[in-house]
């Protein structure tokens, strides 16, 4: 309606408000804001208002005009001129406001008096007639079509919902958002670490470690690096009765590791305590443990779980096949349940692995031997560090023994479920990664290419200093009172202690009081090595 009236406006300019709008539009085109203001005021508001409107309407005009004036003040022009310089979303929001202002409805304020203005244009439509502010509507709408930067909407639309055109608004708004997304996205900051502990802070932290990621997603990520250290199954929480019952039996048996498996001892030797522990601990229901763990390799990487495979296979070798078959049968439902709980996406893979298990039942003994060999090969899985160097993983038996000892001392009963073992192995994998990088940084900093005891001591001192509470709770590690030597003698067997040549405690005390950082590393270099 208002738009239709626009062409008509041109002719009857003198009497009505509509010509005003046209006039003002041309002004807008020509001039920056300052000139516009008085004319706009006089033209739109006062010309019409004084003769006709009630005092109330006049007041309304005044307020509107003042707002308009505020909008078109030189401030705005100035802002425009600087606009390119700013990249902040604030500008964009301003722009958004400007554009949306175009679409806003003319003001039919509640404050406008109901009284009609007699000198309305005949071309004006229904609702604009009702208010004294009718002419204003017209002008706004005209501006709309002319694509001139418009004044924003000043109040809520009350009367006219029809022509405001929600259909008009929607596409534009979305378009705006789309355009702005790019910029705002650029200006959004991602979370960072504090600078002090950030990668830039120290050499040792220059790279992102795998140990910084603990999520399943990240672990999956780590596949890309060919590192299997990060490859433990993200979610493989197996908490079955089977494991627990076995765990109950585990603790007495573990004590007698050597005695029970006397025949095997020579095989296991000193370096491979893995099988020892596991065999003894899995006597009753061995495959309940082994088979669920065997699945992770299938969906993560085929090479993955050397540990558990080794267990189950060695178990097979030790005992008959009957138990194995029986347990495999018992296992199948368990296995599926276990994996379906954590995530359903892996269902297919679990079925596949279940199929594998059934296959293995059917296998002959010779085939089993082959499998065993393959598993043994798999056990020597290739870990590749970030430097591209292969390294073995710490034998699970060692880790398990440690963990069980500490679990006993820390109050737990020393039962560690196999999946917990997996998690612990993973943690220690990460630990060594972190440790290696830290030690590298320390030794490089000292100008060496060799990692010394001093580096390790520096490392230990560093974290111990930063966690005083732990120092207290954990029977005091390295601090002025307890030396690394005391710590070592508490934890290490004598033959290893002999290899450790520690500085005498008094000296180290002084040193520690004197300094804390990398300096003692240098000093201890001399004394230790």
């Amino acid at each position, binding site marked *: 309606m208002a738009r239709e009236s626009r062409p008509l406006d041109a002719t009857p300019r003198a009497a009505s408000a509509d010509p005003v709008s046209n006039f003002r539009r041309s002004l807008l085109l020509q001039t920056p804001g300052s000139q516009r203001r008085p004319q706009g005021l006089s033209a739109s508001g006062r010309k019409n208002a004084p003769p006709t409107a009630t005092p109330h309407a006049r007041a309304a005009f005044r307020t509107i005009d003042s707002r308009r004036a505020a909008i078109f003040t030189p401030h705005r022009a100035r802002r425009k001129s600087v606009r390119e310089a700013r990249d902040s979303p604030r500008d964009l929001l301003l722009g958004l406001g400007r554009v949306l202002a175009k679409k806003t409805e003319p003001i039919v304020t509640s404050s406008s008096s109901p009284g009609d203005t007699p000198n309305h244009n005949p071309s004006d439509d229904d609702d604009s007639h009702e208010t004294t502010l009718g002419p204003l509507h017209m002008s706004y709408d005209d501006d709309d079509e002319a694509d001139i930067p418009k004044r924003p909407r000043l109040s809520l639309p009350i009367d006219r919902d029809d022509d405001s055109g929600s259909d008009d608004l929607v596409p534009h708004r979305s378009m705006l958002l789309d355009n702005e997304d790019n910029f705002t996205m650029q200006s959004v900051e991602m979370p960072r670490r504090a600078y002090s502990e950030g990668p830039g802070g120290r050499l040792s932290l220059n790279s992102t470690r795998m140990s910084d990621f603990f999520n399943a997603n990240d672990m999956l990520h780590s596949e890309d690096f060919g590192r299997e250290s990060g490859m433990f199954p993200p979610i493989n929480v197996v908490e079955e009765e089977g494991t627990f019952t076995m765990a109950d039996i585990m603790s007495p048996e573990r004590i007698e590791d050597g005695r029970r498996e006397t025949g095997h001892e020579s095989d296991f030797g000193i370096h491979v*305590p893995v099988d020892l522990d596991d065999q003894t601990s899995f006597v009753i229901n061995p495959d309940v443990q082994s088979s669920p763990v065997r699945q992770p390799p299938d969906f993560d990487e085929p090479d993955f779980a050397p540990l558990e495979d080794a267990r189950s296979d060695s178990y097979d070798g030790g005992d008959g096949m009957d138990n194995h078959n029986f347990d495999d049968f018992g296992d199948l439902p368990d296995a599926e349940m276990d994996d379906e709980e954590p995530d359903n996406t892996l269902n297919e893979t679990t079925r596949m692995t279940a199929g594998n298990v059934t296959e293995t039942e059917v296998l002959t003994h010779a085939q089993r031997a082959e499998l065993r060999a393959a598993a043994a090969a798999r056990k020597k899985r290739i870990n590749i*560090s970030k430097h591209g160097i292969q390294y073995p993983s710490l034998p699970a038996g060692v880790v398990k023994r440690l963990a069980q000892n500490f679990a006993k001392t820390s109050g737990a009963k020393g039962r560690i479920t196999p999946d917990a073992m997996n998690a*612990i192995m993973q943690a220690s994998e*990460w630990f060594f990664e972190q440790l290696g990088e830290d030690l590298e940084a320390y030794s490089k900093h000292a100008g060496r290419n060799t990692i010394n005891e001093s580096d390790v001591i520096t490392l230990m001192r560093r974290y111990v200093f930063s*966690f005083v509470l732990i120092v207290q709770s954990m029977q005091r590690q390295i601090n002025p009172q307890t030396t690394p030597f005391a710590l070592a003698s508490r934890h290490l*067997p004598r033959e290893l202690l002999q290899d450790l040549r520690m500085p005498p405690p008094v000296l180290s005390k002084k040193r520690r009081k004197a300094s804390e950082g990398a300096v003692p590393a240098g000093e201890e270099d001399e004394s230790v090595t």
Partner: protein
Amino acid sequence: MPGQKLYPRATVKKIVKAHSNCSVSKNADVMIFLDYMLFMQDLVKEASIEAKKGGERGITARSVKKVTADSLAKFKG
């Protein structure tokens, strides 16, 4: 553990070597393993606390995973 080595020294050395790209001096691995033991102690202790909190009967994978990050952060150099 009578008659048993506490840990395979060569393996530890290899691991650290691979990660650090540095050679490891003759007996540094002892200290390294000591460090590792402290880490394990911390990890297991935290995990058992976590397990007790969660009402689990023993140390489980969940509890271990939950505390792994913290323990690692503690032992970061």
